[in-house]
């Protein structure tokens, strides 16, 4: 099995590295710095770390003001609070004035686990994706996390990076770079494309293997850049394979599956079958139990793949 690394650990490390060379980088948290790993930055650069206490609206507002003053703020808390409690602050104080704020939200998705639905952000990508000027990234592993964080620091404008609590299997290595709006074909096939983000990328690779053992030819695409979406990659997948499965640790409403379906419907209609949380609140439990229970496992992707293949129009 692949090595497993925690994305938030690499977030913490990367902002410390960035902070060494770029004195404009500042970091804010809302009483979760140990969990989000911003504590690593706080320890190294106490003068450039601002704890806002349990006050997420104020977290985003203050970050916006720091950006207005020429700083490059990274603001972190759990994704449910960053995207939910502070949604309007993100809209009004960050995206509308296009402030240079980076929101790195940890503990997204259901793999938060035993804390239960109150802490499981399954609408965060949808909420962030709908705001103009926002870039939304859901990295597939720790190295892509580090690359996206480095890229976010260079880029001038709002970025939302959604991380998870647990460790993800490693897909990339230290040389990984990140571009907004650029998908990554991990595997090229001719019969079916699986477009995934976050943890579901590794699980999609497992599903592809199962399908391939059954004689199917499968593409796997890491669409970590949910917004801007790599439309070219989606349309290429639609044209070349004629059937698509999307897989995300998020509601099937408004996230990656929606973004892909929107693109395909308008420009290259082919069947799109979405794997994700099916418009419901989940349960407490371990990450593994939850992924299986709510059909976010390789078996469910395989089933979705078969459905997409069966919906495919006969060629010719």
């Amino acid at each position, binding site marked *: 099995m692949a090595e497993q690394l925690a994305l938030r650990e690499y977030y913490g490390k990367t902002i410390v590295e960035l902070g060494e060379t770029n004195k404009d980088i*500042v970091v804010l948290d809302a009483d979760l710095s140990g969990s989000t790993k911003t504590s690593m930055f706080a320890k190294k650069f106490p*003068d*450039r770390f*601002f704890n*806002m*206490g349990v*006050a997420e*609206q*104020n977290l*985003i*507002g*203050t*970050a*916006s*003001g*720091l*950006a*207005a*003053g*020429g*700083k490059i*703020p990274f603001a972190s808390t759990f994704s449910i609070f960053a995207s939910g409690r502070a949604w*309007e*602050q993100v809209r*009004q*104080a960050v995206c*509308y*004035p*296009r402030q240079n704020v980076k929101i790195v939200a940890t503990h997204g998705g259901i793999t938060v686990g035993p804390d239960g639905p109150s802490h499981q952000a399954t609408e965060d990508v949808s909420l962030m994706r709908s705001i103009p000027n926002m870039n939304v990234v859901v990295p597939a592993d720790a190295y892509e996390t580090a690359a996206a964080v480095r890229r976010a620091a260079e880029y001038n404008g709002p970025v939302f990076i959604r991380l998870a609590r647990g460790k993800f299997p490693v897909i990339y290595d230290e040389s990984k770079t990140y571009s907004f709006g650029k998908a990554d074909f991990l595997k090229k096939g001719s019969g079916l494309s699986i477009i995934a983000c976050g943890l579901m990328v590794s699980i999609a690779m497992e599903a592809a293997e199962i399908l391939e053992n059954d004689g199917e030819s499968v593409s796997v695409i890491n669409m970590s850049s949910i917004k801007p979406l790599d439309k070219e990659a989606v349309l290429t997948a639609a044209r070349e394979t004629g059937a698509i499965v999307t897989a995300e640790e998020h509601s099937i409403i408004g996230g990656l599956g929606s973004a892909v379906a929107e693109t395909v419907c308008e420009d290259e209609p082919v069947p799109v079958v979405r794997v994700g949380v099916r418009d419901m609140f989940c349960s407490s439990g371990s990450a593994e139990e939850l992924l299986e229970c709510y059909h976010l496992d390789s078996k469910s992707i395989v089933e979705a793949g078969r459905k997409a293949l069966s919906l495919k129009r006969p060629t010719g």
Partner: protein
Amino acid sequence: MNFTNDIDELKEISRRMRIDILKMLHKSGSGHPGGSLSCVDFLVALYFSKLDHSPARGKRDKRDKFVLSKGHAAPALYSVLAEAGYFDKDELWTLRQLKSSLSGHPHALSTPGVEITTGSLGQGLSQANGIALADRLNGHDSNVYCVIGDGENQEGQIWEAAMTAAHYKLGGMIVFLDNNDLQIDGHLRDVMSIYPIKEKWEAFGWHLEEIDGHDFGQIFEAIENAKKEKEKPSLIWGHTVKGKGVSFMEGLAKWHGVVPSDEELKTALKELAPAGK
């Protein structure tokens, strides 16, 4: 643009700003006269006397900054910015029109001189804090000024930001509370009381100055006292009159978001005409 400490001169500027505000609102056909007229004296005191600023200075330069947290008073800010030379006065008559640089509420990307985008109440003070923190990191001992409404003071985020400014010892933060005692649905005591103001803000760690918010002498003294506070942020609690300067608007909630008709504008402009004319 000339700075002045002469109170009569500032009163004269305020008189002209009130006329601009009413004309802008009349022309646009919608907007908020009451709360623009209640805070414009404070803005005049800043932009023509106390604020260290000039249109020539860039975003990153050392200078004082101003955040209009109660963004619906945009006409007051726009009139003052135009007068101070941030943009051409003719722009004022495009307020709220399609593709105008003067949006219904202040927007930093649209209007020169607008520091922070506002309109959603309760958010400006957090951003003012962020600016003050950035100033501190940049080694600039500038002041950050902010105007909040008394209805706006009901927003939870104001209190989050109040805590933050005291916690981070933002002594350069000077906030004017425009206590016109009215919000949209009526008097604060009937809708949702924010009183007692002094006790609450002092308990949050702020230095407090209570003044008549239309008296330039008192505004100056309050700002000077606030500037002496090196660690505590300051709240200038200004007793104001909603619709100040136009007799038929004064003290009435109904003038919050209604603009004068042709007739009403005429009457108002007559009242605001210079003495002896």
